[in-house]
């Protein structure tokens, strides 16, 4: 068996605000925005560096609304790799979304930020950590 994950569902409050945030704040590419029944849309965004896409799914009932920003209960949900930590950390600083200071771990240099809903992301540069 040889599988690949092509998309992961991220529950959002609103399609357009989520698209705006991921494409503008994180610079993701909008891969697809296809209308479906009952006002639903099939929306995929992805970082330009490759990897799995995110399927932005609008919350449609109270249970799903409660999951917005809380899909992992405060754990880091997504891991965003960069080839230039210092550059991208500086660029993302304006978002004002970081909830830790950068630190070096055995697997690389990492800092945690939250998206517009409070989902947690690691910004990581793999390899032996270097002070940036």
């Amino acid at each position, binding site marked *: 068996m040889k599988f690949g994950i092509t998309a992961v569902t991220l529950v959002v409050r609103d399609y357009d605000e989520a698209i705006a945030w991921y494409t503008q704040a994180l610079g993701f590419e909008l891969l697809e925005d296809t209308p479906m029944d009952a006002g639903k849309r099939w929306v995929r965004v992805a970082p330009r560096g490759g990897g799995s896409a995110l399927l932005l799914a609008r919350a449609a009932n109270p249970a799903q609304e409660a999951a917005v920003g809380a899909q992992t209960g405060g754990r880091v949900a997504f891991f965003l790799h960069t080839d230039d930590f210092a550059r991208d950390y500086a660029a993302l600083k304006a978002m004002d979304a970081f909830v830790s*200071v950068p630190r070096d771990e055995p697997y690389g240099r990492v800092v945690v930020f939250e998206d517009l809903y409070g989902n947690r992301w690691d910004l990581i540069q793999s390899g032996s950590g270097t002070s940036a």
Partner: protein
Amino acid sequence: MTMTPPPTQCDIAIIGGGIVGSCVAYFAKTITPDAEVCVIEPDPSYEWASTLRASGGCRVQFTGVENIDMSLFGIDFIRNFDQTMSLPEREANAEWVEGGYLFIVPPDRMHALEDAAVTQRSRGAVVDILSPSELKQRFPSIHVDDLGGGALTPHDGWCDPYGLLWGVRRKAQSLGVAYLQDHVVGAQASPFAVRSLRLAGGATVTASVFVNAAGAWSAKIAGLMGMNLPVSPLKRYEHYFTAGTPVERLPYVKDYARLAFRSEGNGFSGGLVDGSIKRGFDFEVDHLYFEDIVWPAVAHRFPAFEAAKCHRTWSGLYEQSELDGNPIIGRWSSKLTNLYTAAGFSGHGMMHAPAAGRAIAELIAFGKYQTIDLTRLGYERVEQNAPYAEMGIL
């Protein structure tokens, strides 16, 4: 139309610029020099701050290894303070006096004192256990008939809290720490993180991590973020008094009745805490307290103080940790995970500030403690209602 100041952005925002908050700032800037650090402190005169109302004592006589280790580091830090913290344009001066600490106890407490000494020595402290006759030989003015003995820690002592606080603050500022003069009146949070603070002056402070080092006010600050922090203001008095008759120079003496005093200039400085008084932000001085409470205890233990005279009494607040008397140090890992706390020092904040400040800076920088492991002092024990009490506080 009102003018709203622009938001202030930093990486590490510290609430409270007393000795604890200033030590967090200094060590954060030392360990993570790239981080922008700001301290929100309402009063640059520190009029009501506990730090400047402290007696300055630093001792290793605790039972908890965390407290002993924090004291050993704090004493070392303060002993070397003038060299390490001086700036080209301004000398730092903590006025360290290695006067020693002397705990004296009734016979039924000697075992506990000896057990504590074993623990303290195992951490690297020097502790001399003294019999009543040895006590009498060293300190002839002590009434020893009802004592089981004492423990003398000769490398303990006291410093000048004012010199210590301003030395740390100026050093931190020289490294780039910004002090904002304002009150924190509100906070905004996502489900799992503090996002920003609202200040009384209208400004907003956003940061990646936040540290509550507000001392006696720390529970109020925690409350703004939905955190229940069991830390209350507890008033205590410090008195400056003279003996009336000549008395040998004394170490910082603490007895089982909670009397605590030391030599200061030509006289003595100390007090006797009443832990049962009503909690609150109360600075009113009861000028009969020395006469009614402290003097009988001093005169019983040191008959030479029969004619003692109190020259000055001032009040200050302990940030009393109501769960177990030990500080709450660490990250709120179950909820707002970028909120760190260093509070509830219960009268030991000055001596433990250097170690606590370094510990918080390590936790922020590395995600775990690098030197002294303070895990057991974390907020988790509050959430689990599992007190971790210090047994050696007399």
